[in-house]
C-alpha cells in the first residue's frame, strides 16, 4: 500500500500549485477533487491501519490514520464551503488574484497537515508542523485588514517560538535515543518505541515537558494559547475551520507521539499528570471565557481550547476506553467544529458582522444553515446523538474506572459551564427575533455552504449513533498502542 502514502503526499501539493496558476473555476474544481481523493486515500488505510513507503520515511499506523481521516474529511468539505463563501467585491483582477491565493493556500495548508502524520521520523514531523504554521500564517493575513495583520504576526511569532521549544524537545529525545541506538539513527517512531524503556529517564522527562509546551502552543493549551482566538477570528472562515478542526488536532498528534515514548520510559504517571495539568488549565480558562465573548468566531475559538483541554484530560486517564474516546473526539470535533465555522461563515455573510450583539433571528434569516449551525453547536456541547456525546461519555467512563473521580467531577462541571456559554449565545443570535436594525432578508448565501454543513452534521451523527465497524476497530487499535498502565 506504499503508493497510497506517496499519493497522499503528492496530490494536495500538486493541487496547491495548480490552483496558483489555474483560472478560479478550474482551481475550485481541482481543490474539490484533491480533497475528495485525499479523503478516499485516507479511508482506504482504515482497514489495515498500517503502510510504509520510501524506505520507511513515510509510515502510518492506526494512530496516524485516525488523524489522517480527520484531516481528509475536513479538506473536501472546506474546499466546498470555500466555493460558496469566497465572494470578495472589487476589481476583477484583484478578486481573481485573491481567489487564487486562498485556494492555493488552502490546498497547501491541507497538504502540510496530511504530510505530518505520514512522517515516520519525529524530526520530520516537527518540520511538517512548522510548515503548517508558515502556510497558515500567510492565510490568516490574506484578508489584509488591521485585525488580520495583527493576528497573523502574533500567530507566526508565538507558534514559531513554541515550535522552537518543540525543536529542543526533538533534539533531547534524539539524545535519549542515541544512548541506546548510537549516533546517526533516523528518529523513526517504531525504533524509538522499541527501545524507549532503556532511555535515560531524565532526558525523556525533559523532552516530554518541552514537547507538550512546544507543540502545545499550537494545540492551544493554556497558558500558551494566546494566538488562537485572534487567528481563528481574523482568518477567512475556511481557514478558521481548518485551523480549529484539523491543525490543533494535528499538533496534538505530535504530543501523543512524545507521550508514547514517555510512557514507555517513565511509566504512565508523569506523562499523564503533565497532560492533566495543561488540560484542566485549558478547560477552566475556555469555560470561563466562553461566556464573555461578543465575536462569534472567537466564541468558537474558545470552544476549541475547551475541546483540546478535554483531549488532554482524556489522555490523563489510564483506561483504554478513555483513550479511544479521545481519538473519537478528534474525529467528531473535526466534523462539529468545521460545520460550526461553516455556519458562522454563513451568518457573517448574511448579517455582515461577527458581533453577536448585532445578530438576531438567524434561524429565520438562514432557513437551512441556521438550523444546521444550531445542530453543530449542540454537537459541540456534547448533546446526543452526536459524536462528541459518545466520545466524552467514553472519557468520563474511563475516568470513573481509572479511578479519577475528582477529575471527572471537575471535567463534567466545566463542560456544563462551557455548554451554558455556547448555548446562551447561539440561542440569542439564532432564536431571538430580529429588530429593525438587525433584520436581514431571508435566504442562503450559497447551496455549497449548506451542502458542506449537511455532510458535516450527518458525519457527526453517524459517529454518535453508530460509528462504522472498521473505524471503531481502528480507534481501539490506536488506543491500545497509546495506552499504558498507570
Amino acid at each position, binding site marked *: 500500500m506504499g503508493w497510497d502514502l506517496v499519493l497522499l503526499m503528492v496530490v494536495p501539493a500538486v493541487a496547491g500549485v495548480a490552483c496558483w496558476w489555474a483560472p478560479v473555476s478550474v482551481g475550485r474544481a481541482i481543490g474539490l477533487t484533491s480533497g475528495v481523493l485525499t479523503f478516499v486515500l485516507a479511508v482506504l488505510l482504515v482497514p489495515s491501519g498500517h503502510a510504509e513507503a520510501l524506505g520507511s520515511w513515510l509510515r502510518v499506523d492506526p494512530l496516524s490514520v485516525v488523524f489522517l481521516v480527520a484531516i481528509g474529511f475536513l479538506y473536501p468539505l472546506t474546499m466546498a464551503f470555500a466555493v460558496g463563501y469566497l465572494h470578495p467585491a472589487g476589481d476583477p483582477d484583484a478578486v481573481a488574484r485573491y481567489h487564487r491565493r486562498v485556494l492555493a493556500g488552502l490546498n497547501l495548508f491541507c497538504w502540510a497537515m496530511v504530510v505530518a502524520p505520514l512522517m515516520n521520523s519525529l524530526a520530520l514531523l516537527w*518540520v511538517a508542523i512548522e510548515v503548517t504554521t508558515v502556510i497558515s500564517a500567510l492565510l490568516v493575513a490574506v484578508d489584509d485588514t488591521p485585525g488580520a495583520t495583527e493576528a497573523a*504576526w502574533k500567530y507566526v*511569532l508565538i507558534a514559531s*517560538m513554541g515550535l522552537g521549544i518543540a525543536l529542543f524537545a526533538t*533534539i533531547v529525545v534524539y*539524545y535519549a535515543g542515541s544512548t541506546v541506538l548510537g549516533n546517526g539513527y*533516523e528518529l523513526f517512531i517504531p525504533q524509538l518505541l522499541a527501545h524507549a524503556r532503556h532511555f535515560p529517564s*531524565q532526558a525523556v522527562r525533559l523532552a516530554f515537558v518541552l514537547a507538550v509546551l512546544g507543540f502545545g502552543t499550537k494545540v492551544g493549551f493554556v497558558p500558551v494559547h494566546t494566538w488562537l482566538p485572534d487567528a481563528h477570528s481574523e482568518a477567512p472562515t475556511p481557514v478558521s475551520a481548518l485551523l480549529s478542526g484539523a491543525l490543533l488536532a494535528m499538533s496534538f498528534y505530535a504530543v501523543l507521539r512524545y507521550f508514547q515514548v514517555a510512557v514507555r520510559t517513565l511509566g504512565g504517571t508523569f506523562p499523564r499528570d503533565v497532560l492533566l495539568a495543561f488540560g484542566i488549565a485549558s478547560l477552566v480558562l475556555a469555560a470561563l471565557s466562553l461566556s464573555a*465573548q461578543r465575536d462569534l468566531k472567537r466564541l468558537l475559538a474558545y470552544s476549541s481550547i475547551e475541546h483540546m483541554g478535554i483531549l488532554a484530560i482524556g489522555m490523563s486517564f489510564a483506561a483504554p476506553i478513555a483513550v479511544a474516546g479521545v481519538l473519537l473526539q478528534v474525529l467528531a470535533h473535526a466534523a462539529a467544529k468545521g460545520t460550526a465555522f461553516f455556519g458562522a461563515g454563513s451568518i457573517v455573510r448574511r448579517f455582515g458582522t461577527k458581533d453577536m450583539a448585532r445578530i438576531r433571528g438567524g434561524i429565520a434569516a438562514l432557513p437551512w444553515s441556521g438550523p444546521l449551525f444550531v445542530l453543530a453547536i449542540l454537537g459541540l456541547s456534547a448533546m446526543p446523538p452526536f459524536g462528541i456525546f459518545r466520545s466524552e461519555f467514553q472519557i468520563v467512563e474511563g475516568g470513573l474506572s481509572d479511578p479519577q473521580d475528582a477529575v471527572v467531577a471537575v471535567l463534567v462541571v466545566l463542560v456544563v459551564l462551557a455548554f451554558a456559554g455556547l448555548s446562551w449565545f447561539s440561542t440569542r443570535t439564532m432564536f431571538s427575533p430580529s429588530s429593525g436594525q438587525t433584520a436581514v432578508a431571508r435566504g442562503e448565501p450559497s447551496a455549497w455552504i449548506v451542502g458542506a454543513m449537511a455532510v458535516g452534521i450527518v458525519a457527526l451523527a453517524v459517529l454518535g449513533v453508530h460509528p462504522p465497524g472498521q473505524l471503531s476497530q481502528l480507534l481501539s487499535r490506536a488506543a491500545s498502542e497509546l495506552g499504558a498502565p498507570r
Partner: protein
Amino acid sequence: MTHVGVPSTYAAVAEALAVLVLLSEFAMLRAPLSRSQVHLYSFQSLVVTGLAAFVAADRHVPGLYAIAGISLVLKVVVIPAIVLRLLRDARVELVPSHRLGVASMVLLALAAAVFGLFVVGSMKVHSTSLPTPALALATAAVLVSFLLVILRSDVVSQAVGFFSLENGVSVASLVVAAGLPLIVEVAFFFDLLVAVVVFGVLMRVHHARTQTLSTTVLDRLRG
C-alpha cells in the same frame, strides 16, 4: 599525570564559542538599533557555524561540514540580508521598543541565563562531540532569546529573537545530537528559510499597514 579539572584545548575553545553565542544574545537584547541587532545575529550565526566546523574537524563528523556550509550561507548571509533590506525599504533606524530599562532587561536576562545554566548543568548528559556545559550555555541563550521577544516591542527584534532561538537550539544539537542525519538537518534549514520568508512578508505587511515597525500598535485583539 592527569590534571583533573583542567579542560582540554578542544573543550576550552568549544566552551568559549558557546559563551560567545550567549553573549551575543545579551548584546541583541540591549542593542538600540535594529540594524545592530541584525549584525549581531549574523555574528552569532558565524560563531555557531564556526563551532559546527570545529566539531566536524576535531570529532571527524563530515556531515557537519555540510551543515556549517548551509549555516554560513543561510544564517550568516541570506537571513540578515533579507532583514536589512526590509529595514532599508522601511527607512527606519531606531524603533523605541524597550518595555523595560536596559539595566532591568539585562538583570532579568541574567536571571534567566543562570536558571538555564544551573537546571541543565545539573542534568547528567554525556556527549562525545562537545563538553556538556555548552548545552547549559545553549539553554541559557534560548531563554534570553525568549526575553528578547517578550521585552522588545518591534517586529525586527521579535523576528531576530526567533532566529537566534534557532541558533541556541543549533548549539544544543551540536552537543547532544551531532550525529543527526543530514537529511533531517537540511529539512530544518529549509524550514527555517521558509519561516524567514514568511516573517519577512508579514513584517512588510505590518509596515505597509501601520507605517511603523513597532508592535505597540497591535492591541486591537483582546479577550
